[in-house]
């Protein structure tokens, strides 16, 4: 539900979805392609044949290794050093950085901020589910409503940050609108440490409900609609249809969204960084990591923080595989 998590959301989702059985099986048939070739040939020909697939994957795999795996490996190494990012020497200091992550209140307290975003992601999923359900049945102007609900997801994060900075200004849009309903003396939406995370999480709901909505909508519409007709003939009302048909039918997508909500709320970054810069107690784990690395020049500690986040995300994903065994990764 968060910036970073949802930017990569399709990727995560993808990783957890089963390949349709048919294509998977077909894919595993290793005889494809090579089966058509004549067997044998000279030694040089065989070498060239073995090399060809590697030439095709070289570019993509190369980038993957250089910009994902090499940094990830370095991350593990940096995390046990006291490196500042500039020094030529890196002193290995064991697990001190990890101890620091869990004992320094400045670092550990930011996990509390994640809870706001985690709670918000339930609001987001509930809203998305509600609108996806009602827009799956005949509704006038359905395409207009779909478009409007989804549109915020496409807007540039910095633009959203400014839009909501403007909205939350003291005496600004929100305060004026609340004034119409007789609510005077509103809080400082972004200035009050008690409120700021709620305001930011609400911004996040505004931004990401559309994505959940479209995913749910797609899933609901893939349920064959004869089932609804049968249910209607049996006298099931909309509410019963929702519980008996829709919810079980889109169980997987809901489950995945739930998992993404956890890893997402731990890696919130863009909205609070743009809007408050992490001020007033709105700093998230990723903002802390980044500022530890680049402002406080403590790459070792920041790496340990990144590794901790990585491990949590891996655990969450692992749990997801256990809870939703259907969705085993089946790519090869």
């Amino acid at each position, binding site marked *: 539900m968060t910036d970073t998590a949802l930017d990569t959301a399709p*990727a995560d989702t993808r990783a957890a979805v089963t390949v349709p059985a048919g294509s998977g099986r077909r894919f595993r048939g290793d005889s494809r392609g090579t089966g058509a070739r004549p067997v044998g040939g000279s030694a040089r020909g065989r070498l060239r044949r073995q090399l060809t697939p590697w030439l*095709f994957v070289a570019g993509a795999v190369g980038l993957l290794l250089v910009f994902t795996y090499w940094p990830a490996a370095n991350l593990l190494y940096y995390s046990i050093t006291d490196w500042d990012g500039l020094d030529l020497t890196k002193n290995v200091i064991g697990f001190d950085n990890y101890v620091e992550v869990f004992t320094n209140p400045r670092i550990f307290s930011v996990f509390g901020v994640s809870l706001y975003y985690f709670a918000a992601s339930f609001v987001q999923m509930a809203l998305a589910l*509600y609108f996806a359900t009602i827009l799956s049945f005949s509704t006038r102007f359905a395409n207009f409503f779909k478009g409007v609900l989804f549109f915020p997801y496409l807007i540039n994060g910095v633009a959203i940050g400014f839009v909501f900075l403007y909205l939350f200004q003291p005496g600004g849009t929100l305060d004026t609108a609340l004034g119409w309903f007789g609510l005077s003396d509103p809080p400082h939406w972004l200035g009050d440490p008690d409120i700021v995370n709620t305001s930011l999480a609400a911004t996040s709901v505004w931004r990401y409900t559309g994505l959940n909505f479209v995913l749910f909508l797609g899933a609901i519409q893939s349920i064959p609609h004869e089932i609804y007709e049968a249910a209607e003939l049996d006298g099931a009302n909309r509410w019963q249809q929702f519980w008996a048909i829709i919810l079980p039918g889109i169980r997987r997508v809901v489950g995945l969204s739930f998992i993404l909500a956890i890893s997402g709320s731990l890696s919130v970054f863009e909205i609070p960084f743009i809007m408050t810069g992490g001020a007033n107690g709105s700093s998230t784990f990723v903002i802390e990591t980044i500022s530890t690395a680049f402002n406080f020049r403590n790459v070792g500690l920041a790496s340990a923080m990144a590794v901790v986040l990585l491990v949590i995300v891996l655990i969450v994903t692992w749990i997801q595989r256990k809870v939703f065994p259907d969705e085993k990764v089946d790519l090869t």
Partner: protein
Amino acid sequence: MSAVTTRPGRPSAARSGRSTASRLRGLSATTAKYLSLVIAVLVTLLPLSVVLIASLKTSQEYGQTGPFDPPANWLNLDNFVTAFTSGEMLEGFLNTLVVLVVSLIGTIALGTMCAYALDRFAFRGKKLVFGLFLVATLIPSVTSQVATFQVVNGLGLYDTKAALILLFMGTDIIAIYLFIQFMQAIPVSLDEAAMIDGANRWTIYWRIILPLLKPAIATVVIIKGIAVYNEFYLPFLYLPSEGLISTSLFRFKGPFGAQWEVIAAGTILVIIPTIIAFVLLQRWIYKGLTSGAVK
């Protein structure tokens, strides 16, 4: 979509048999449904429309009027001119365009080639390559930037557009996966026929596979295009001296700190291309997102 929205209503026998009470209940349910939709539309559009209103006011007018008061002149575009020129947004748009086009071409070239090899060849290490792409999706990229930064710096690419292009090009599993799915629909007999005619693997890829992958390429262009256009963090970190559209806008925080009418204009300028793209490509965007995510 239309399959569900155009579904026939209840059988008329059932309708005529309904009591007044149940018809009333149906009516109030319908009202509640449309009411909730209208509220959702208001909540979505209001924050955006007040920014639009603010962008059309003069500085003096902005100070004296409330956020919902319409601007005196709906065609006052001065703020947009100010934002565009002093905010260096032209540079931002041009840089974004360059990065977008080059990294899209790169992603498509590398992604389709990789997918071609993974789908059409049997080779040792194929499972390993798949595994590498899958595991990579689990690493939250924002955090690993701590270490990625050192790599980019070590390659001497810090503060260049090349750094961004390479990072965006690092083809993700979604692109490769989409390509593979589409490629599985292309009959292998086409490859075999070409091979009998003496075509080599590269020719097959270039002349047969690539043209047939157009729909998948369109999907990837849309998904990736949106992602690159909206990306904030990578340009913020790796290209401090030039602006992409996100970072150009972010810089408004400094010099225009209190001039909300100019910031609002800049914000609207950044959103406009998204609106145009959305209106033109709506259907493909939905399709791309759902096929990219949950198929």
